[in-house]
């Protein structure tokens, strides 16, 4: 257990995970829609507030898992309730806790029917998502990973758009089908190591064939979640039909679980398979970047456009991960956060317009800059961030990824460049229509205070990460270095074994 820095005293992580769950149970008893909304807001705000000490108390000089908690759960199978965070998961946890209040605020008036049930689903999602990022036991991870499907299914299926049934079923089936083999891989790993503890599974000398199969099982589950080309087809459907809060959760947090899975499991547990299959995944990432870009260029529906842009952006993240160097990995993690901030904000923007015009078509919003100056200002900044304009957050992330890429393989890195140009093209096309074309919409009002408050924190993060990324990068240095070291140890051991049989 030397890889855990145990948390003495107050169990901070458990409190953060279970506070939303407790809030959801109390919410069931509360009457009145406004009381329910305010209660949910309060619960998510408190969760966000108590998660801040995670950053201030985080020790960036160690790669061990901090704030760890360890309780025996099912002793006969060595299943434990183990929580802990390191430099890779810290920012994702914070992203989750900070995005959730904005989701509640963003659906304040959007959701008019079954408010209580909607808010319960949101809170259940928060518990499951936070748990996924903190779990250090594979069974705990899997339980939460799958449990998330039910509230997410309901969010899309009950409160979604016209094709919600198709979208929700596709989302559920796709994700579940991907994870069943993950379960088999987990059990196989358990039988090799005798433990379900994730850190104990790392750095073991599995045979390369075994690693290959485990890696493929992992890959299927995580690639569907990311989603990587060609497993992305559930994403546009789910994004378009989900209510605003659902889209934001999906884009900002759920997609990150796939890439988080690569970082947490694929690289350290199956390093040899990562080394041998990594190049293919790089090419898949390039395909995702180009495919996402070209498809986004052809969309007339704003939500679809952003959904396909997500495919491209997540392609940059996987690209950064599988180059296996420090810049690439740090860029990838930062890009995960950036995508959460920027795409979440864009979905919130589209949701705000949908409330007013009941349309997501670009054509129905042409020229609204004349009538909605505040909204358009926000939209412009977030669009620029999405295409990685300098001084915004995505620029730093993409720059690091590409810098990492060029230091390893110039061909692949060069192939990703058109993706960056495509991003500029489709976002500019959106902006051009919304800003300049058409007669404008005098019938709709500009953003109100609640909506400005919803978007403002994200705007701050866009510039904060864009101008001063160091506070975000500094916490991940040690963990990323350790991750690379884990892969390198496996590589050199393997080479040594091959040279001296």
């Amino acid at each position, binding site marked *: 257990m030397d890889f855990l820095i145990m948390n003495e005293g107050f169990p901070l992580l458990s409190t953060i995970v279970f506070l939303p769950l407790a809030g959801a149970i109390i919410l069931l008893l509360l009457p009145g829609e406004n009381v329910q909304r305010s209660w949910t807001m309060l619960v998510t705000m408190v969760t966000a507030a108590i998660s801040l000490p995670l950053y201030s108390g985080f020790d960036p000089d160690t790669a061990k898992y901090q704030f760890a908690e360890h309780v025996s759960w099912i002793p006969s199978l060595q299943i434990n309730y183990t929580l802990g965070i390191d430099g890779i998961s810290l920012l994702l946890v914070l992203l989750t806790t900070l995005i959730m209040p904005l989701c509640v605020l963003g659906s304040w008036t959007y959701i008019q029917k079954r408010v209580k049930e909607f808010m319960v689903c949101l809170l259940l999602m928060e518990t499951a998502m936070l748990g996924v990022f903190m779990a250090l036991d594979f069974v705990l991870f899997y339980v939460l990973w799958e449990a998330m499907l*039910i509230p997410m299914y309901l969010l899309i299926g*009950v409160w979604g758009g016209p094709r919600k049934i198709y979208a929700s079923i596709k989302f559920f089936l796709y994700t579940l*089908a991907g994870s069943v083999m993950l379960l088999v891989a987990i059990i196989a790993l358990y039988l090799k190591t005798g433990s379900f503890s994730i850190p104990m599974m790392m750095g073991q000398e599995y045979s390369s064939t075994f690693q290959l199969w485990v890696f493929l099982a992992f890959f299927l589950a995580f690639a569907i979640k990311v989603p990587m080309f060609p497993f992305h087809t559930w994403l546009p459907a789910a994004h378009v039909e989900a209510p605003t809060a659902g889209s934001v959760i999906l884009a900002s947090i759920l997609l990150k679980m796939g890439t988080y899975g690569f970082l947490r499991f694929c690289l350290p547990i199956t390093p040899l398979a990562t080394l041998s299959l990594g190049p293919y995944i790089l090419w898949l990432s390039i395909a995702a970047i180009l495919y996402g870009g070209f498809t986004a260029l052809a969309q007339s529906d704003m939500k679809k456009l952003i959904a396909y842009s997500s495919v491209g952006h997540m392609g940059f993240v996987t690209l950064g991960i599988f180059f296996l160097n420090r810049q690439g990995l740090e860029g990838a993690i930062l890009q995960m956060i950036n995508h959460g901030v920027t795409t979440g904000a864009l979905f919130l923007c589209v949701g705000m317009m949908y409330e007013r015009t009941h349309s997501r078509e670009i054509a129905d919003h042409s020229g609204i800059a004349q009538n909605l100056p505040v909204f358009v200002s926000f939209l412009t900044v977030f669009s620029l961030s999405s295409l990685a304009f300098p001084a915004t957050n995505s620029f730093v992330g993409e720059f690091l990824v590409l810098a990492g890429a060029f230091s390893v393989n110039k061909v692949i890195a060069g192939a990703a460049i058109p993706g960056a140009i495509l991003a500029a093209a489709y976002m500019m096309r959106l902006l051009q229509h919304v800003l300049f074309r058409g007669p404008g919409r005098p019938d709709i009002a500009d953003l109100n205070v609640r909506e400005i408050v919803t978007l403002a924190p994200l705007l701050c993060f866009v510039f904060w990460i864009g101008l001063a990324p160091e506070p975000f990068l500094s916490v991940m240095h040690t963990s990323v270095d350790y991750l690379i070291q884990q892969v390198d140890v496996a590589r050199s051991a393997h080479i040594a074994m091959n040279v001296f049989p």
Partner: protein
Amino acid sequence: MLFAPELLLLIGSLVLFCLCLGKGNGKLAKNLTLGLAIAASLLSLATLNMKGSMFYDAYHVDLFSQLFKLGISVGFVAVLMFGSELKGIDDRMRPEYFLFMVLSTIGLMMLVSSVELLTLFIALELSSYSLYLMVPMRDDHGGLRIQMEAAIKYILFGAVATGIMLYGMSFIYGLTGTTYFVELIPKLHTLASTPTAMLAIALFMSGFFYKLAVFPFHFWVPDVYQGASNVTTAFIASIPKLGAVALLIRITTLVAPVGGEAVVTMLMILAVCSMFYGNLSALVQTDVKRMLGFSGISHAGFVLLGLLTLKDTGYATSMYYIAGYLFMNLACFLVICKVSRNGENVTIEDLSGLYKRAPLLAFTLLVGMMALAGIPPFVGFMGKFMLLTGALRDGHLPLVILAALNTAIAIYYYLSVVRVAFCSAPEERPDVPVDMLTRLVSISLIAVIIAMGVAPRQILDIATIAVKSIL
């Protein structure tokens, strides 16, 4: 005291018999039966730690049997509570209906304690014949007399399965010269690898494969589920399966661990066939009961995964799984019984917009279906997870992969029910009234399904101790 739960039900059934002699009084019979069932579950709980044997050692009372008795009586209470209106059964027949229900429960309770072949046979037939009679007691709804068809199929297949089982028993007696399990075990262990012994065990098991609805003894399932009234189906679908698993564990211990290879291969093939047959057929069903019937076949396949490890942990996992299955299944049948207004069958369409018509029922259905599908944090997931772990530990990798694939297939039809309940508009369908008793049962079932899924440790520990006591 050892025999208290069975004795109580036996006396109760005599009282019920007297009630049927007079003019039918459904309400009195119902309350009496419910009282009996609750008392029987309390008595089973009280006798949980007792040990002993009676009737010339043909009847063993131990933790293993008492756990199953507890499960059987608790399931019985739940069925009576949510099925109390007994829609679909003619009022004049109700006392008889309750009489047979109680008799069937007694039969099952005796079955799990029987450790002698003839006692076992009588107990099994007592429970089966009562069920055969309960099926045709349904009202004749559409004039199609489907309940008669179901009853005929049930009894014919049942008789064949029983015949096969008796044939197997005759082999066992011929090989060993005894009908007592205690004496059988050492004798069969020495003979375990001989083909005759294998054949005998396989034939013997068939009777219980029939009860559990394992392929190829599943043919009665869809028609009986569809033809019997909703409450009858709820009973048949959940409670006898506990008895079947108990006996399958006992029979497997006859051959295990020596010379069990042929048995393992047989169980493996049956498990795979059951899973695929059940899941693939369930995909196209429109009647919810029929669908649950096919899903039951696939779950029976999963239960076999625990048996074929031939280890006490594997048996304990099977016990845990079937107990979980009891509650998940009851949760689904509760919804069916309530949604059906006059006792007619419920199609998937009929559940449209259930979350507006009866939110609690919709939630119960969600939990029940997702648990059956094996989604955490419900008991279905934990059960499947541990069954797969056990099977993989024994090196049955292909089997585990096939089982995992089945989980993915199954999700589709469970989800399609949930989809209709949550995502479709109710249209003209009226609200579903839910009485307090049903609410209570429904909330308790949800709580049990979640609690068993999150904290399986205690139940597994008890089950392991219970299994060790019979080895």
